[in-house]
């Protein structure tokens, strides 16, 4: 596997920030009440993770080991502030939707975790790519979580999408008479659904490992007969 393929695989599945590392749960649980909010936070997170990984990879030679964590925190907080201001100034319509989520990204420890574990030790291109892939790994899980909670909680999908794409509108999946299931919208519901997603990932991984083991057993030649006579 090439280095970039491995980075992608780690971000999307093997070391997925949510399913494997369980990092960034604070914004994850708070915002995943519906698909649109969840995906919006995720997209903003990708942007910040790429910027943070890029900046810290570029500056890594200047940062003394002993004070790396405060410097990382400083850089991440400054970048989030800059992104927040830039969104507000240049993409105001989007800011009205995403704005409340951008400061939340500072609380997402996955950003600090990737900076410390990867960007501080790798080159610019690999670090930026890692930020992108870790961000995409975050997005697909949080969006799935949001979609499941929205579907169970209020019987819709993509509600609120007209705030981002005015021509689209949400879908009523379950009948209008669906009474809603409040607990899915409240924080406990987020834990339940997240627990199920993690269990699903572990099950898939366990099944894949089982297959690999079985294949190996079939392929291995009988050891006793392999010695030359």
């Amino acid at each position, binding site marked *: 596997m090439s280095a970039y393929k491995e980075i992608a695989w780690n971000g999307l599945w093997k070391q997925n920030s949510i399913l494997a590392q369980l990092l960034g749960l604070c914004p994850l649980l708070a915002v995943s009440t519906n698909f649109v909010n969840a995906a919006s936070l995720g997209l903003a997170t990708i942007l910040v993770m790429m910027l943070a990984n890029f900046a810290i990879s570029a500056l890594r030679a200047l940062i003394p080991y002993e*004070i790396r964590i*405060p410097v990382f925190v400083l850089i991440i907080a*400054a970048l989030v502030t800059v992104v927040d201001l830039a969104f507000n*100034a*240049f993409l105001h319509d989007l800011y009205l939707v995403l704005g409340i989520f951008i400061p939340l990204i500072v609380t997402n420890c996955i950003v600090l975790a990737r900076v410390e574990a990867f960007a501080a030790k790798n080159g610019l291109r690999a670090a930026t790519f890692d930020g992108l892939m870790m961000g995409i790994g975050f997005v697909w899980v949080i969006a799935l979580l949001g979609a499941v909670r929205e579907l169970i*909680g209020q019987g819709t999908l993509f509600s609120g999408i007209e705030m981002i794409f005015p021509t689209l509108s949400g879908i009523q999946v379950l009948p209008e008479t669906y009474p809603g299931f409040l607990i899915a919208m409240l924080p406990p519901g987020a834990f339940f659904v997240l627990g199920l997603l993690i269990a699903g990932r572990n099950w898939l991984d366990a099944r894949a490992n089982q297959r690999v083991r079985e294949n190996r057993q079939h392929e291995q030649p009988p050891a006793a007969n392999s010695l030359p006579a």
Partner: protein
Amino acid sequence: MSDPIQVVRQESGVLRIAVRTAAIMLAFTLVFTALMAGTYKATEPLVAASALAEKLRLIGEVLPPPLYDNDLMADAITLAPQAALGLDVETRIWRARKSGAPVAVVLEAAARDGYSGRIGLILAVGADGRLLAVRVTAHKETPGLGDYIDPKKDRNKARPWITQFSNLGFDSVPRDKWRVKKDGGRFDQMSGATISARAVTNASGRALAWAAENRDRLFALPANARYEESKQ
């Protein structure tokens, strides 16, 4: 015993490293603070313009621009924190006039008894004492449940819940009937999410009563004056 000269040398080495590290930390802090300050300065006019546009848009939702012909932003007064409106900060009250005659005041109010915290409201109260319209500006009600108070989230797009207050005054809905039906009043609520509806209904009733009562003074004050309670 170690060589005293060696100890002094080691100590000065540690000190040097500490000073150097502190200097690097300081440099990073200065550079990134400068970056933030620079971005803030550079975006400030754009952000202010967007905030103004947003405010005008909100005002436009409760008070259609054709109804007035003055410059709302210029014809505004400052309102000291007003407990009757649920406000603990200074707000602005905008006064709409047509050919000089009072049309409506646009004011902010807040309900402090929402299901999860404060609900911000903006209201337009006509010179005749009727509530022209009310909108929610900020809330944290449960998504999918109590958030129908915001017409953007209301599933009834044709006639959102909050529009039932439009063009009503205490002449058509008596003050003691300005409540949700569950409390014996006139206004609908959605079952399972009464608290959000009750908070908005009661806060709009209080705000309407306050605005109707103080209407003459609100219109009489010169622009940019400060409105204080009890200075009769």
